């Protein structure tokens, strides 16, 4: 019985991934003109680089797939998003990105360049882009989910459910995660000040987690794999760490105890730089993990089409292997989604804890698990 349901689930997952991730490969006859043959601007067929970058970069629409209609034209299936632009000359412009018709039309003196960014038709005009791109919309969606979940669970606790009795419904989900962050991340690293930093740690944990998980669904945006998003999170963590630092911390940086004199200048430099490098590592770690995961999944699926370009039979043959690997990597990416959210939170907590730990007798060891 159990095996039957696993089989059904596998078949469902398999079919969904197959349906959602399929592209059309266009085969084109070679150029017969010899005298005035011009170089093709775009590589016809399957352009893996375009596919990969199209998936991991931001865009002005949610792109799901495209099919070839009866007239031989490609019809993309997308959800267009609002474009909000401001320039000195034209003022505020507001329109839906469907007006661009996938780069074929110009709107109000703006057009889409080949990377999908809005640029003015006239060169040299400074345009400020405040559009609701897919990253923004996905962040707002994650925010909405988070706010709804937390407020409704908090309300059920104030009504008395799950306080002295067993938790019910969504409380089960939220209580496990909040208790985990409080007991494994905040309390060991922040001791008596855990409750002060818990709102920030929980927010960062859940926001990264929800954006990671939504980003795994085909067709959604790659928010956490966007360097701008992780830079903002890293900078906010850096600000929190700086505001919780005390003189003892800075004393240890500029005057490390127990260090021979000739090494001190180097060590002071390294310690001072590490104040900035630690949040920088947080930024790069989250960004690189998420974008690498997305690129791996896209590459594995693209392998099918790359092989199919050489010979359709090899393409079909590569499909089961490719799809099997993709499903395997999807499970790893699910783990990485949780892991990276946890790691960002725990390292922020560790750095905050290091910043305000108080005096200790000389020779007494630091009491945190890992000294980073």
């Amino acid at each position, binding site marked *: 019985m159990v095996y039957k349901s696993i089989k059904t689930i596998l078949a469902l997952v398999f079919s969904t991934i197959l349906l959602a991730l399929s592209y059309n490969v266009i085969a084109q006859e070679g150029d017969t003109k010899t005298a005035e043959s011009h170089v093709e601007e775009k590589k016809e067929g399957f352009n893996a680089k375009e596919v990969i970058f199209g998936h991991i970069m931001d865009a002005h629409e949610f792109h799901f797939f495209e099919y070839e209609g009866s007239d031989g034209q490609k019809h993309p299936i997308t959800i267009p998003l609002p474009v909000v632009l401001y320039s000195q000359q034209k003022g505020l412009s507001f329109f839906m990105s469907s007006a661009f018709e996938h780069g074929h039309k110009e709107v109000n003196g703006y057009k889409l360049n080949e990377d999908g960014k809005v640029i003015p038709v006239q060169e040299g005009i400074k345009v400020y882009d405040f559009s609701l791109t897919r990253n923004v919309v996905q962040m707002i969606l994650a925010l909405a989910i988070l706010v709804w979940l937390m407020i409704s669970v908090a309300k059920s606790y104030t009504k008395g459910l799950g306080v002295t009795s067993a938790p019910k419904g969504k409380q089960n989900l939220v209580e496990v995660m909040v208790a985990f962050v409080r007991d*494994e991340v905040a309390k060991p690293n922040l001791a008596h000040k855990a409750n002060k930093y818990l709102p920030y740690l929980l927010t960062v944990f859940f926001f990264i987690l929800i954006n990671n998980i939504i980003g795994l669904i085909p067709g959604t945006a790659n928010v956490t794999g966007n360097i701008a998003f992780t830079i903002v999170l890293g900078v906010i963590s850096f600000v929190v760490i700086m505001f919780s630092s005390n003189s003892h911390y800075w004393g240890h940086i500029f005057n490390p105890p127990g260090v021979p004199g000739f090494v001190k200048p180097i060590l002071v430099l390294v310690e001072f730089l590490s104040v900035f490098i630690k949040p920088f*590592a947080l930024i*790069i*770690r989250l*960004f*690189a*993990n998420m974008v*690498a995961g997305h690129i791996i999944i896209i590459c594995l699926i693209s392998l099918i089409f790359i092989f199919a370009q050489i010979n359709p039979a090899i393409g079909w043959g590569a499909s089961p292997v490719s799809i099997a690997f993709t499903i395997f990597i999807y499970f790893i990416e699910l783990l990485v989604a949780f*892991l990276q959210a*946890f*790691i960002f939170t*725990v*390292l922020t907590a*560790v750095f905050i804890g290091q910043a305000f730990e108080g005096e200790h007798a000389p020779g007494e060891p630091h009491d945190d*698990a*890992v000294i*980073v």
Partner: protein
Amino acid sequence: MTVFLAAGALANAGGAVGAGLAAMGAGIGIGQIGKGAVEAIARQPEASNDIRANMILAAALVEGAALFAIIIGFLAMVL
């Protein structure tokens, strides 16, 4: 005036080789962390929760370093 024609291709190759070396380094590093953790759990199974938390923390730090190198490899290809 000589032009180094293979510059673009060499940049790609260099980036890919660098990323591969970084992955190798990460594999060795995280493997040793795992070895230490598993041996520690074998010695004292009651501490397995604490050991697991520290193992994951240390593995994330090592992986962060490896991902730095992979990003640089990627930049070598793109820039």
